[in-house]
């Protein structure tokens, strides 16, 4: 039983990270139907910025939760800025182009950003400080660590805020409108460019949260971490039904659990085979993902 619970919480943690990144994929897809391959790189840049900020601040004598909060905020700001800029450079000029052109532009952007960080920083793995302190009340709990708890709670809170934002704010309503029909929304006076920028900013900020939390949990980063995380998160978004926010979260969690239990009870050799196999299996029976509807309401 303890083993099961450990795997359960391990999968939940991993799934939460997937979910945070998948939210960005799903929001962007919902609005402009683009698989933003550079999104994984945003996650990586978030983690790098946090590392740089945290090291600089630590030298100034800061520590504990304030260090985590401040470097986290800096990472979020920078990731959002990168997301915003990338959209303006690589996707906005292509809004009227055929569907695959922005996808290739995104792949190019992803290669560019990886090499940008590689050249400006380093190709080596860097040690990432454990920014999340151990809770004293967690001393005797073995099935789940403090950092894991923080990750799970943060994901839940972020998702809740995002859902409320989309449901109840003006911008959220505009997002839903643009997702349903861009032309119609424009005719009704919605500033579509602003909505798209806002989507990229929010999605990137969430990716940065994921990047900072997981890096401080596993303790190392390099320029390449965004690639695999990005692919997995994209899988999660599709699994849940791309364009749907609860779908992205559910997809992330299902993927995390699948990988965790597949490793725990069968073999880690085929961890990814199980993950992708599950995806194929679910899509055969529900071609639009778990929560997606054939003509689904997006975002």
């Amino acid at each position: 039983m303890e083993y099961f619970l450990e795997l359960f919480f391990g999968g939940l943690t991993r799934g939460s990270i997937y979910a945070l990144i998948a939210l960005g994929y799903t929001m962007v897809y919902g609005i402009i139907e683009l698989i933003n391959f550079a999104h994984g790189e945003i996650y990586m840049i978030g983690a790098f910025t946090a590392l740089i900020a945290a090291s600089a601040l630590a030298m100034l004598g800061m520590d504990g939760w304030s260090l985590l909060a401040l470097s986290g905020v800096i990472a979020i700001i920078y990731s959002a800025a990168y997301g915003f800029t990338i959209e303006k450079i690589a996707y906005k000029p292509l809004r009227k182009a055929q569907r695959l052109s922005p996808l290739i532009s995104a792949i190019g952007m992803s290669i560019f950003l990886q090499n940008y960080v590689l050249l400006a920083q380093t190709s080596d793995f860097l040690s990432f400080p454990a920014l999340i302190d151990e809770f004293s009340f967690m001393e005797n709990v073995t099935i789940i660590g403090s950092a894991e708890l923080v990750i799970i709670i943060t994901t839940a809170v972020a998702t809740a805020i995002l859902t409320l934002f989309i449901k109840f704010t003006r911008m959220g309503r505009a997002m839903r409108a643009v997702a349903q029909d861009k032309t119609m929304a424009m005719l009704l006076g919605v500033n579509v460019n602003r909505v798209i920028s806002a989507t990229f900013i929010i999605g990137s900020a969430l990716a940065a949260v994921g990047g900072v939390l997981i890096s401080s949990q596993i303790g190392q980063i390099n320029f390449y971490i965004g690639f695999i995380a990005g692919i997995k998160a994209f899988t999660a978004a599709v699994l849940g039904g791309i364009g749907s926010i609860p779908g992205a979260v559910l997809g992330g969690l299902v993927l995390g659990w699948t990988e965790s239990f597949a490793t725990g009870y069968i073999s880690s050799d085929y961890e990814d085979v199980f993950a992708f196999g599950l995806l194929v299996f679910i899509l055969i029976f529900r071609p639009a993902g778990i929560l997606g509807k054939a003509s689904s309401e997006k975002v």
Partner: protein
Amino acid sequence: MDSEKRPMLPLIGSEIVKSTLTALWFMFLTFPIMVIKISPLDKTIHWRWMNLVYVGAGAFFLSFLWRYFMERKVQGARADEDGGWQKRAGQRISTDRRIYLPGLIALGAFVAIFPFLFSSYQTSIMITALMYVMLGLGLNIVVGLAGLLNLGYVAFYAVGAYFFALMNHHFGLGFWFALPMAGAIAAIFGILLGFPVLRLRGDYLAIVTLGFGEIIRLILENWNDFSFGPSGIAGISRPGIMGASLTLHQHTIYLYYIMIVMVVFTMIVVGRLRNSRIGRAWIALREDEVACQAMGIDKAKTKLMAFALGATWAGFVGCIFAAKTTFINPSSFTFMESAIILSIVVLGGMGSIMGVVVGAFILILLPEYLRAFSEYRMLVFGASMVLIMVFRPQGIIGGIRQHYTFQRKPAADAGEGGDAACA
């Protein structure tokens, strides 16, 4: 253009302000990553302020260029509507025999003597480029014609390569026997993948094919008894020619000619396929699935045909790849490979054969010739991909749509019009 009517000076002023703002924004953006470098050993920070200056100056000037080219692109798009010069020139070259025949002969002659003009390294990377031309043409059937986004194309490439490698290793099967069989096996895999994904559309299809590609690679990595795992298979024999023993250089030249023949063959077959009944059915499927089905086209059969025929070429190339490098292991068949092949198709111009050729030459030869940039190579490569797409979103050579113009003529040609309805 309104801007032309405005007085000149404020215009320049506003341009400078725009560029300055852009420069400031990029300086802010690149600040932590370009300027600060933490050395974890002695816990000190290196401040590289010069980088900030470079970024600022670079962004300032590039933003002028960017806006200039954007302007041109907008104008170009307008000009294109009434037939831009490129299109007209392109049409002229392709229709006027006086230009097109000598050009073709010159190109043919150059291609034929290429390996004797250049070193065996040049020939070798040319073979690689030609292999990607074939892969691009194959994927073009699936993505460009049938509109099925396949992100796991590399799986079929792997199937072809491993088929030949294993057959050669266990049974000593020669290249020429394996080549058609590799194509057939890959086609079977194409159909096997096709069945479960018949119902999926667009990006759901993309992720499932991506998953399929990864699954094949993981199986090759893990199933040691079958595929020798990550250590791969070495000593695969090169294609022979009537039992003669060739030196390495001769082998390279021989393989080069094999590739030339294969590429020409592929181009002819794909070109014919596109204008055939099935080809037009693919295009119809791409444009509108429902309407296409209503026209009486068997959707399942058409999709499976696209998967199978697309995969066949990957199988061929896989076999040639194994024969060329004489060693394969699963690390050659990653998702990045699929992404590059897809980029070839889209960058060159979807649905266009010449486009794929140009795309493959750019994407495969560019990194080789960028070796002069050494570590900046991949940075430049990624940036070029973005720039090409931004400034030529339809691809370098966009697919030219088949036009059928109605002409009052004797009834002989009238049959064409009916077929074109679907295309």
